[in-house]
């Protein structure tokens, strides 16, 4: 992979005004767009439920429920699977073609900004998963007699946002592996930071199964703070690995700055070695 740069490492690439690597609507655009997508989806579902959760969503045995909530459930599972695999496949295919290309510092900085946009998206998505829907779930279960695993709160929470937690964390790793090889390249091994973050989302999904089994079999009352629910918290703590992602890329940004300084001190063009 060692190559001598043929262009000055920080020579400006043509960017439209305001669309540079560290402009708000340039490199940082995904920081706004990514979270917004999930906020809009959550808001739309929530608004939709306002009108029918207590009339239709309350009885899983009714035909009306089958036509609405159950169909929503199946749509979520299908779309999560389709979108997830499509995105991962795209990342792997595209990633393999670009991973070995030497890029300028400007391009690398833009990619790190993009990466931070993905992390922002994960942060917001996990928030919707771990705070927004659980509040609705608590309010539902402490009020309504428990019905099935498919309640108005469970359906978006467990069957859309939980799977998307996995989709986003794994996808972000793939982006890091191929687009930021100096930080997360395959030769270095599998990053512990991503291992913890991805584990958080995977174990949370697994805990859903245990949760529903317990509620079916022996958990008869609806105390939210029951020890039976605590694995959700413990697995969620693994998401602290997200801080390491910010730290690892900050270290690379400082590394880029050091390379620029060194190049400027020694004359620039021929000094940078990948």
């Amino acid at each position, binding site marked *: 992979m060692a190559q001598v740069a043929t262009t000055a490492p920080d020579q400006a690439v043509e960017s439209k005004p305001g669309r540079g690597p560290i402009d708000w609507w340039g490199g940082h655009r995904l920081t706004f767009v990514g979270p917004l997508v999930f906020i809009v989806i959550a808001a739309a579902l929530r608004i*939709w439920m306002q009108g*029918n959760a*207590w*009339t*239709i969503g*309350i*009885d*899983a*045995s*009714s*035909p*009306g*429920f089958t*036509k*609405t909530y159950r*169909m*929503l459930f199946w*749509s979520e599972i299908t*779309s999560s699977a*389709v*979108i997830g695999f*499509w995105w991962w496949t795209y990342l792997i295919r595209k990633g393999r073609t670009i991973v070995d290309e030497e890029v300028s510092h400007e391009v690398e900085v833009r990619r790190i900004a993009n990466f931070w946009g993905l992390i922002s998206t994960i942060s917001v998505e996990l928030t919707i998963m771990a705070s927004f829907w659980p509040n609705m779930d608590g309010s539902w279960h402490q*009020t*309504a*007699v*428990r*019905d*099935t695993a498919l309640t108005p709160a469970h359906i978006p929470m467990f069957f859309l946002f939980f799977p998307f937690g996995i989709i986003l964390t794994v996808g972000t790793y793939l982006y890091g592996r191929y687009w930021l090889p100096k930080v997360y390249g395959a030769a270095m091994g599998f990053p512990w930071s991503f291992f913890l973050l991805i584990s958080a989302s995977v174990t949370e999904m697994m805990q859903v199964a245990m949760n529903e089994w317990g509620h079916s079999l022996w958990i*008869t*009352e609806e105390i939210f703070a029951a020890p039976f629910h605590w694995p959700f918290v413990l697995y969620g703590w693994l998401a602290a690995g997200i801080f390491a992602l*910010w*730290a690892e890329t*900050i*270290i690379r*940004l*400082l590394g880029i700055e050091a390379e620029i300084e060194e190049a400027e001190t020694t004359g620039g063009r021929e000094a940078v070695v990948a």
Partner: protein
Amino acid sequence: MMKRLAAVLLLALGTGLAFATPASAHGEKSQEAFLRMRTIGWTDVTFSGGHMDPNGDMVIAQGEKFTIKGTAKLMNTWPDSLAKGLPRIGYINVATQGPCVEMLTRTVNGVSTPSRIEITKGHYYDFEETLMGRRVGRWHVHPTFAVKGAGTLLGPGQWVRVTPHAFTSSIKLYNGKTINLENYNLVSVWTLQVVGFLLGLIWIFWWTWWGKTAKGNPRRTVTNPAVTLAIPLNDDGVAVGLNTKKDHRVVNIIALATALFLLIGWIWQASAFPVKIPQQVVEYEPPLTAQDQAPTLAAVDARSAKYDYQAKVLRLEVDTKNVSNSPIQLASFVTSTLTFVNPASGTTPYGQYQDALKASPSGTIQPGQTATLTIDLPGSRFDEEHLLPRGESQLTISGLLVFKDASGQRNSAEMEEPLQPKYIS
């Protein structure tokens, strides 16, 4: 592609929603049949108040009262798998879609009962709950009997339509002051919350935005590790210029302001609310009812419970011995939320949860006599309520056989019998 998926999803949901009819069950159909049949026997449940509309809905206004009365028997057939077979603590309540109605008074066996009761298997609990309409809409309201370790069992429900009207939830405090539960101290609670939040916001803004380094430059965040990782962990960064003595002064001021805020709050609550008591735990054992002490009318021994899926008839055969001094007649069979009345005894079914049974012989049983009653029940009602335990691990039918004697006195006998479904014709 995502746009297309979203469009398909929305269209499907919209179409489904257009044809969806409101539900009337609230989770009880997901409870296994044995759980609902072997636990609580609901008899004489009535809703009174407001007026009935042509659809059978009880119409009340916000703030208008209505009453639910009935009797719940904690059956001797109580399963071992619930509350370790020994139900001890109960709570009689209502199930509905949240606080759309509000509890005003509750008596159990004639005694005012705000909270939980100590319960015993085999006993009867006469309840009377007065509620008022609170949230505009059409709600399905059931009386419930919750048992610690088992969960909430639902009785027969009633559609209640609450219409708009001005109302308050008035409570009189110990000092004679009347308050409205809906909004009492709402403003002070949220003012305290917001002021506290603003103090925290000031703290964070100082450190991330307003504060300056020793050289007077805006303070950074992500580039600081270049410095912080090179100084000891227990170094506050003042010597190296990351933080300043001004930071120390500012945090002192904010911490002091916060302490002052809490002190003012404390003084306020101590003077505004001088009398306070801890949350109360009220628990007692209700006295016995007349039914608990009434002489038994019949001793029953169920011989079979057969269900014909094609004919949709559940047929019970029950040996019934009259152990009283008066002729008795089967008045009804009660199981879970359903009551099947015997028209021959002079009663007719009413409401959503009642139907008629066919008993043969239909007449009276004389004192000391034993008759084998064949009771046909419409299977479709069981189907609707998901009460026929076809795919479940406990295939039993349980319920209360309610008998009445010549003077009109009633008493019930429990029956439990393995279900014999006829799977093929």
